[in-house]
């Protein structure tokens, strides 16, 4: 074994441990302890700042966290930690944590007791239920809470209040993953596993900048790429991301045109006879319709639409068309762009046509953005019914009513739930006067920020915000509830490859802050929600009893957690529900009585009914669904000639509520920037570090210019930067610029489609843009000072 210290801001992926095909991934245990620490104990947990599910232990001393160490035994990371895992925990101890409830009185937020705060919420809930009914109350939650929290919220909203207005901010990150899986396989549930990386002979990353979104998963891929017999790599991304630099084929498509590229790839797969006809005949329906849809989509046609070379499209098709073990992954480049679900479904279709499912190396990973996004989908906190039940299936609703012991009529099921963008519309129109936001920051994260500000700050809305800090959103709330966070509460969560981890309470929350579960249990008790026999509707009292209640609710459903217990998670480490790979037998959860949805038209989102679904005759077969390309809702023109692409950077998460309070992460990417291609920068008279205005039809921001590897004609702006730590500056939120539009199927907003104008405001003062140099935002000028963390960022790595 060798031990070394590595600056993990400068080298976020750490030291390579190369592997060949089919070999197990070696352990590499990463550890960080604050200087002089002498931990009393190590407490088990996993990542809460991305969806990879890296497992680790937290060192505790004198009631404080003093370090972290990867869990070498865990299947997900084998001991490795990403930069947010290793540094992010410091935000827990930030001096500006909320420590007491706040209540708005005379226009100002003032300290209050828990009783006063909860009484205010309960009084308003009761009055509105009485006067206006359940449609007056809406809940908007997170992708960072625990399964137990979500399940409790779901039953409160659905059966307690009886409202259809419940969603998570997973709408912004993972909604398309869930919808694409439902459309293709009849039901949510990740088909693949991270182990597929170790077996694949080709990996295709569709809008998935894995190096920054799941750095430990990228480390796994890098170890394959640098080992013997490396996989071929295809990347579809408008930016020259690190994966794009390593790719055999990189399609830098115009933002908004993913579906055209996918339709052409499928066209080539069909035209070249790369279809596994036996697999398709046995395990799928809809091939004829798919063939018709992609028939006109030649590489030449797509080359024109996407602005890439037709030869490159052919090469990409050959790469995926001739692979023997193909792993496809998808993320925000597709999910947050135009025709998101249709494009993501084409990736599923590619895997189905090639018979690349359910075998080692043959998988699809429709990735999640947030750490616990998967659980919002399983519990119904994202508006689905719990346990992947189908709201249009009477038997599923009756079964849920049986589990909850309520009248089936109490559960709203007159349509899909109200997604957050429709809730915003109801708030705007005054028909939704009560809005409870937990662990998310819509003022910065929803599109068209100026509109969201005016809606949520309005006197017509009673806004409850439950969070760790006084976020931009909390600052305009009527009631602010101080929440305990990860390591201050116990619960489970599930990553993008269905691995369930337990995270234990290790320290006390600050002041009077309370666990989210306890807040909702208290609300349920005060509201006196009852089941049909007069017993308490929410009959659990702590995390483990909530977990067991959830397990009972999903026992007969595809996402059964049978056999997963707190005890087993404590004894070992992460466990996958559903086994390593779903669909090894080519049977999908698609039978009409089993499926989670009867499906939607991918172009319009129009719902199919049961009869239409039965007519497809899917039984246990996958459904090949496709749509033709239509232009995005906003295209560049004379006024706004560049395409806007917003996104993330490796060192931050969401609106930086946590990562902005972790010194190493904050220093690595301290402020907003705009990325331009060299040709665009030159045309606009802009150089590295110059200050520019970026303006759309909605709003404007100012940012320094990074001349980088983004595609020509595109301006990239990171979306992490709000105003909580820059109160005197005009807003620098990327969402000042974005358009209000969403995918018709998944309802995921289009953060990566829109038009802007960039103009120079001032010369730079010799400082480069505050953008990392070792990520997709790397400068073309190689002489700029490189991003590093210094001694504060040194992490111990124990290598085999």
């Amino acid at each position, binding site marked *: 074994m060798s031990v070394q210290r590595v600056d993990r801001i400068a080298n976020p992926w750490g030291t390579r441990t190369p592997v060949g095909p089919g070999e197990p991934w070696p352990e590499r245990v990463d550890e960080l302890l604050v200087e002089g620490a002498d931990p009393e104990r190590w407490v088990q947990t996993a990542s809460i700042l991305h969806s990879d599910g890296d497992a680790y232990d937290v060192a505790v001393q004198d009631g404080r966290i003093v370090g972290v160490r990867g869990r070498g035994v865990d299947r997900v990371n084998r001991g490795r930690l990403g930069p947010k895992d290793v540094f992010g925990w410091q935000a827990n101890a930030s001096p500006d944590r909320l420590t007491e409830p706040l209540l708005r009185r005379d226009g100002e937020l003032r300290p209050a007791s828990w009783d006063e705060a909860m009484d205010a919420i309960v009084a308003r809930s009761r009055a509105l239920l009485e006067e206006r009914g359940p*449609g007056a109350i809406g809940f908007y939650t997170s992708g960072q809470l625990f399964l137990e929290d979500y399940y409790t919220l779901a039953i409160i909203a659905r059966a307690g209040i009886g409202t259809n207005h419940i969603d998570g901010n997973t709408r912004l990150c993972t909604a398309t993953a869930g919808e694409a899986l439902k459309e293709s396989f009849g039901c949510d549930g990740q088909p693949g596993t991270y182990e597929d990386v170790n077996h694949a002979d080709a990996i295709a990353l569709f809008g998935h900048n894995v190096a920054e979104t799941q750095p430990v998963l990228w480390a796994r891929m890098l170890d394959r790429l640098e080992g013997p017999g490396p996989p071929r790599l295809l990347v579809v991304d408008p930016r020259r991301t690190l994966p794009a630099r390593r790719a055999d084929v990189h399609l830098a498509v115009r933002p908004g045109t993913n579906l055209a590229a996918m339709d052409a790839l499928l066209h080539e797969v069909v035209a070249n006879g790369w279809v596994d006809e036996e697999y398709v005949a046995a395990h799928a329906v809809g091939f004829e319709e798919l063939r018709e849809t992609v028939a006109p989509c030649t590489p030449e046609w797509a080359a024109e639409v996407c602005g890439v070379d037709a030869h490159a499209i052919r090469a990409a098709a050959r790469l995926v068309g001739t692979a023997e073990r193909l792993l496809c992954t998808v993320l925000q480049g597709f999910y947050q762009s135009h025709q998101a679900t249709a494009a993501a479904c084409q990736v599923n279709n590619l895997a189905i046509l090639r018979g690349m499912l359910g075998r080692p190396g043959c998988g699809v990973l429709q990735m999640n953005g947030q750490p616990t996004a998967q659980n919002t989908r399983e519990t119904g906190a994202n508006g689905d019914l719990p346990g992947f039940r189908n709201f249009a299936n009477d038997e599923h609703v009756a079964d849920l009513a049986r589990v909850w012991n309520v009248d089936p009529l109490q559960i709203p099921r*007159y349509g899909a739930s109200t997604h957050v963008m429709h809730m915003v519309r109801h708030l705007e129109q005054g028909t939704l006067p009560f809005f409870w936001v937990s662990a998310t920051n819509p003022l910065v994260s929803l599109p068209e920020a100026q509109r969201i500000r005016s809606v949520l700050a309005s006197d017509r809305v009673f806004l409850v915000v439950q969070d760790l800090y006084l976020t931009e959103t909390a600052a305009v709330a009527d009631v602010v509830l101080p929440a305990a966070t990860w390591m201050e509460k116990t619960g489970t969560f599930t990553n993008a490859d269905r691995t369930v981890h337990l995270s234990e309470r290790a320290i006390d929350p600050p002041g009077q802050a309370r666990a989210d579960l306890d807040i909702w249990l208290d609300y349920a008790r005060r509201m006196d929600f009852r089941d049909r026999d007069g017993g308490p509707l929410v009959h659990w009292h702590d995390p483990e009893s909530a977990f067991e209640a959830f397990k009972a609710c999903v026992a007969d459903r595809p996402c059964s957690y049978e056999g997963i217990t707190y005890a087993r998670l404590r004894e070992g480490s992460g466990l996958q529900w559903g086994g390593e790979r779903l669909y090894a037998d080519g049977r999908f959860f698609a039978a009409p009585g089993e499926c989670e949805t009867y499906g939607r038209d991918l172009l319009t*989102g129009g719902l199919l009914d049961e009869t239409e679904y039965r007519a497809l005759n899917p039984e246990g077969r996958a459904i090949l669904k496709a749509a033709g390309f239509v232009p995005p*809702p906003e295209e560049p023109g004379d006024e706004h000639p560049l395409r806007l692409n917003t996104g993330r950077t490796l060192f931050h998460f969401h609106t930086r509520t946590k990562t902005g309070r972790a010194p190493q992460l904050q220093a690595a990417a301290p402020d907003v920037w705009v990325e331009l291609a060299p040709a665009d920068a030159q045309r606009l008279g802009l150089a590295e570090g110059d200050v520019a205005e970026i303006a759309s039809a909605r709003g404007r921001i100012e940012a320094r210019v990074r001349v980088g590897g983004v595609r020509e004609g595109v301006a990239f702006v990171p979306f992490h930067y709000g105003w909580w730590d820059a109160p005197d500056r005009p807003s620098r939120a990327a969402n000042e610029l974005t358009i209000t539009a969403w995918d018709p199927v998944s309802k995921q907003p289009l953060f990566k489609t829109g038009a802007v104008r960039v103009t120079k405001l001032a010369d730079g003062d010799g400082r480069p843009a505050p953008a990392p140099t070792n990520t997709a935002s790397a400068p073309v000028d190689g002489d700029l000072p490189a991003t590093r963390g210094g001694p504060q960022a040194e992490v111990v790595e124990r290598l085999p």
Partner: protein
Amino acid sequence: MKLDAAIAEVRAAEAAVAGALDAVGARHEGDHDVFHMTRTLRRLADANLEALAPVAERYGATGAPDPAPEPHRAADGGLALLDDLRALHLRYAEASIDWVLLGQGAQAARDAELLDVVSRCHAQTLRGLKWTVTRLKETAPQALTS
């Protein structure tokens, strides 16, 4: 042969759909998905009219389709959307049944080209019809109980 009249009916109905889409989109810019989807559906309606053009010429049904009367306008907010989407739905329903009738005529006349146009175009009209039902069902609970 009265197929020219049936074609004229379909053209008028599709033109009415197109007009209603424009009107609904313009009136409901604040319902952003409605605004954007009416523009997408307008493309489909236009494509239908274009696909009909050669057969319309063959049957001598080339007069300009009747201009679409404006859908009814109701109160503000959710009810106005409900009302306008309902009117749009009825336009689609009319166009859909006109396609059915034309399809029956095309079969009886053994006109394969016309039959092909009908089956391709009718699918697009049904798509719009289905979207209006879905969107109406989303709108109705809040509009009718708030």
